Structure formats: C-alpha cells, structure tokens
C-alpha cells in the first residue's frame, strides 16, 4: 500500500534557495512519488514558500533537482515547468483580479491551447464539477470572490493545465475551518485522480492527516521526516505543531482506516 515505492516524480538533492545572499533554504533533500501527497510542515519563516518558489523556477535554486525523471542544465524556466506538468498554487493566489472567474480558468489552460490542444471546454466542465461555486460566479470578477472561492479559483486555474505535480502553498491560510475541510477534501480527491501533490502547510494537523509522507522544516532545513501517520505520533511534532488536542485522536484514526480502504 505504500506509495513510497512508486516511481519518483521529483527528486531534490541538497537544494539551496537564496534571496540575494541570504539562503532561506539550505541543503534540503527530498522526493515526491507518483500519486503521493507529500507535506512540508513547519513554522512561519522556515523557508517553505521559498522552497516552492525555487522548485517552480521563480527563484534561482542551487543543487540537483530531477523533475519527471530528468535533470536539466540550464535550469528550466517557469513556463517550461508548466509545460512539463508542474503547477504552483501560491500562497498569494496570484489571480487575475479584474478578469472574470471563467477567464481566469480559461487562461489556466492557455499553454495547452497554444500547443494546439482544443479540449479546454472539457477541462472547464470538470473544474466546474469539482467547484460548483465557481460555476455560479463564472461571470464575476475574481476580485469579488471570498477567500475560499479565491483558493478554489487558484486551484482550478492550475488544474486547467492538467498538471502531474501540484505544489500547494498554504491552501488553508485565512480560511474558515469549514472551507479548509472542503479544500482538503478536494486535495484528497485530486490524489485519487493521479495528481501528485507537494503540500506546504502551517496547519500541521490537517496536513499530516492527509499526507502520505511528510517533512518538518525549521529555519531552512528539514529536521524530521517520515510517513505522515508516524510523524503525527511523534512527540516532538505533537509538542511543537499539533498541541495536545485529544479530539484529534479518534478522528485521525477514522481517517487512517478510511484511507486504507481507498
């Protein structure tokens, strides 16, 4: 049942990402396998967002990264990575605020359309099926959406490119618990549809419930790693990130059994 044995989509070795001279991520190594949700948890400022920006080509990155079984010299640009099947849903969402919801989504499939793929309408219908709220608001400007809808739109826009690997940065940030649960439900569903996911979260308990494998990041380095279920029982993780929340126990157990049946 372990997804750890599946082929690797992304292998990073000794990766460093720096803003100018300040290295926000120093020498981390990890991998993401096909059909896996890998989570990176850790406090604010640990370098999680910087790592994602580096992986996506938005910031210069040192070290070795193999994406989809291929290393590349010179390092690929964001656009090449999008075409290769990577997508980033950034913490700031980076939507096109004054365009309509539908235009935002259609633009998500712009690169495929440019490549001559004319099946954007099917993708759009699938996104609307996944996020019915977006269909209701499809003619509204993206700027008028609520926080949760914006997150859904950012996810929908990324999915329009049919990514094989999605990098998700703090999808629950600023969202009400109910909306967060909905977002995590959808992430779980994406995994069953074969999209691999790297999930960066401050909401460690939600992330560890969902993930297959997880890393704990502190001040730019990974300090712990392991199967998510094990990390969730780790004393240090409980103390620093989960708190002593007895209600989490039984519910997590249910989730675990539910997942095993999938």
């Amino acid at each position, binding site marked *: 049942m372990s997804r750890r044995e599946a082929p690797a989509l992304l292998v990073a070795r000794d990766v460093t990402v720096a803003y100018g001279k300040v290295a926000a991520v120093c020498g981390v190594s990890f991998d993401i396998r096909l059909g896996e949700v890998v989570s990176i948890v850790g406090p604010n400022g640990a370098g999680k967002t910087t790592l994602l920006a580096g992986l*996506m080509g938005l910031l210069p990155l040192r070290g070795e990264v193999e994406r989809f079984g291929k290393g590349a010299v010179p390092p690929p640009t964001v656009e090449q990575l*999008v075409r290769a099947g990577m997508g980033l849903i950034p913490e700031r969402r*980076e939507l*096109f605020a004054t*365009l309509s919801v539908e235009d935002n989504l*259609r633009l*998500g499939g*712009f*690169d495929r359309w440019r490549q001559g793929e004319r099946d954007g309408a099917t993708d759009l219908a699938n996104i609307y099926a996944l996020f019915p709220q977006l269909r209701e608001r499809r003619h509204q400007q993206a700027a008028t959406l609520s926080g949760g809808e914006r997150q859904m739109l950012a996810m929908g826009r990324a999915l329009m490119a049919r990514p094989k690997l999605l990098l998700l940065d703090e999808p629950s940030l600023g969202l009400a618990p109910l909306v967060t649960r909905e977002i995590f439900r959808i992430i779980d569903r994406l995994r069953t549809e074969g999209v691999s996911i790297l999930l960066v979260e401050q909401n460690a308990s939600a992330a560890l419930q969902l993930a297959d494998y997880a890393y704990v990041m502190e001040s730019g380095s990974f300090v712990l790693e392991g199967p998510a279920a094990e990390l969730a029982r780790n004393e240090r993780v409980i103390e620093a990130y989960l708190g002593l929340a007895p209600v989490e126990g039984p519910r997590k157990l249910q989730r675990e059994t539910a997942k095993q049946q999938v």
Partner: protein
Amino acid sequence: MNLDIALWLSQDAITNGAVYALLAIALVLVYTVTRIIFVPQGEFISFAALSLASLQAGQVPGTVYLLIAGGILVVAADSVGLPRAVALQRLPGRLIRQMALPLAAGGIAWWSASRPDDLWLQIVATLAIVTPLGPMVYRLAFQPIAHASVLVLLIVAVAVHYVLTGMGLVFFGGEGLRSNPYSSLSFNVGVLNVTAQSLLIVFASVTLMAALWFVFERTLYGKALNATAINRTGAQLIGVSPSFSGQLSFALAAFIAAISGLLIAPTTTVYYDTGFLISLKGFVGATVGGMASYPLAVVGSLLVGFLEAGSSFWWSAFKDSLVFTLIVPVLLWRSLATPHSEGDERQ
C-alpha cells in the same frame, strides 16, 4: 473666434487626436505589460512614413537591411550561453524561424519598389518591414533586463530611441519626405472642407481601436497579455513568459505605430526624427489615464488634439510647448486625486 473657425479647428483636433490616441494606446499597452515606457515608438512612426515614401520613389528602404541584420542578431542572442553542440544543432531551425519574416518583408519591399504605383503593395510592404522590428527590439534590448526597475528600463528605452533615430538618419538622410496622398477628394459640409484624407485617418484609427478591443476582450492571446499586465507572477504560472508577452506587446505597438506613420505620411513632411515629437503627444495623452487606462488615454489624446489646434490658432509660436505643459496640471491632478499607491515593482 467664430463658429466657422471653431469647426475648422475641431476637424484638425479630431484628426490629430485620433493619431495621438492610437499612439497612447500602444504606450499604455507596452507599459502595463512590460513596465517599459516605449520611447522608441516615434522611430517606428518615422520608419513607416519614410519607408512608404522611399517605396513610392522606387527605392528599397534601408529599414529592410535593419530588419535582416536584426534577425541575425536575434539568432545570435538566442544561441549565446548554450553549449556549442546544442547551439549548432538548433541553428538551422532558428535561422528559418527568425529570418523567414525579414526575408519575406525584404522580398515584398523589393517587388514593391519596382511597382511605384501599387499603393496597397507599398502599405503591405511597409507594415511587413516595421512590425517585426518591434519584437526584435524587445528581444535584443529589453528581454535580457526584463526584471530591471522601471527606471533602468526607461533609460534603456531612451538609448534605443537615440540608436534608432541615428539609423533613421543613415537610411533616409536629413531631407524630409512626403508620400503621395491616398486620395485628393474633399467634400464641402457647410463651411467645412472635409478632406477624404482626414476622414481616412479617423476611420482607420477607430477601426484599429475596435480591432484592439476585440483582441483584448475576445481572444485568448489578448487575454494573456491583459493577464500579464494584471499579475506578472500569475501569468508566469499559467505558462505566459515575460519574453512571450513582451514580444507580443512590442509587435502590436510597432504595428500601431506603423499604421500611424502610414496615416500621417501624406499629411506632413516627415523627417528621420519627426516621429518622436508626435509620439510624445501620445505620451501626454496616455499620462491623462495614468498610463493604465485605455479609455482615459483616448480622451487625453483628444484633449491634446484640441489643445494643439487651439494653441496653433491663438499662440502658434508656443503650439508644442503648450501641449507639453498640459502634463503639469495633469500630473498635479493625478497625484492629488488618486490615493497614493506603491508602483507595481513586484516581479
């Protein structure tokens, strides 16, 4: 001033204002997408007007050679930094892709020069020469520094302006040229003598504006450009690279400038440096809209047209300086009326 004069000045104002509006739209487009103030726009106007006049004189304009040299430079720039084997392997494909358009434009120009009476062919040749120069300028001068600050981009834009002005002098000499009128028809409407020429200018401007509106509102390419203007990072994440949107916006801007050059070519004697002053008036118009709004840029350009027509009647010696003085109250008004915001310096 009586009504006749007012009408007569208005005709002038609207004709000129329409051209300024086109230029203002191109400036807003380039600035919002790339953060570059498109200072060299004027040279594209001059190049178009002078290329047309050269073709009508039966000569192949020097801009053709600039275009071909530019194509070679682009191929060279694309190959820099690649391992030698990769560069050599990609060279034939790149040469075909980059040189096809310049060579085709050269062919059309050469053919057109031998047919001095074929106006449509001359127009096609001029557009084919001037439009591809836009993306070339972006590729060579701006793409390597796409992430620089607005100020650095402005300084480079000024440098490109001087280089292109100098080339204009080399290609066309210091003498002004005027192309043949498209039509010598005119109609008497009341006291007004409306020339077909000025009707053509207004009609062509409005048509082009409508076409641009269509591109931005109805096509995915236009929306991708718009998206880049709204959110650069977001655009990268959907696979729209800064070089793609930069080259596309420069191609559109060069096309618009070329059309403007074609429109004014028969109405005034164009020198190698005439375009700059015309483009500057478009810039004043675009400033009215804060370099961000297309409708306000059009309104501002018409305002410039009226101010110019009025001042040429009352204080013709100060015609140009009055137009440029408009920028002072406009900037005052904009800085007082709009809430202060940090410029979009984010990348």
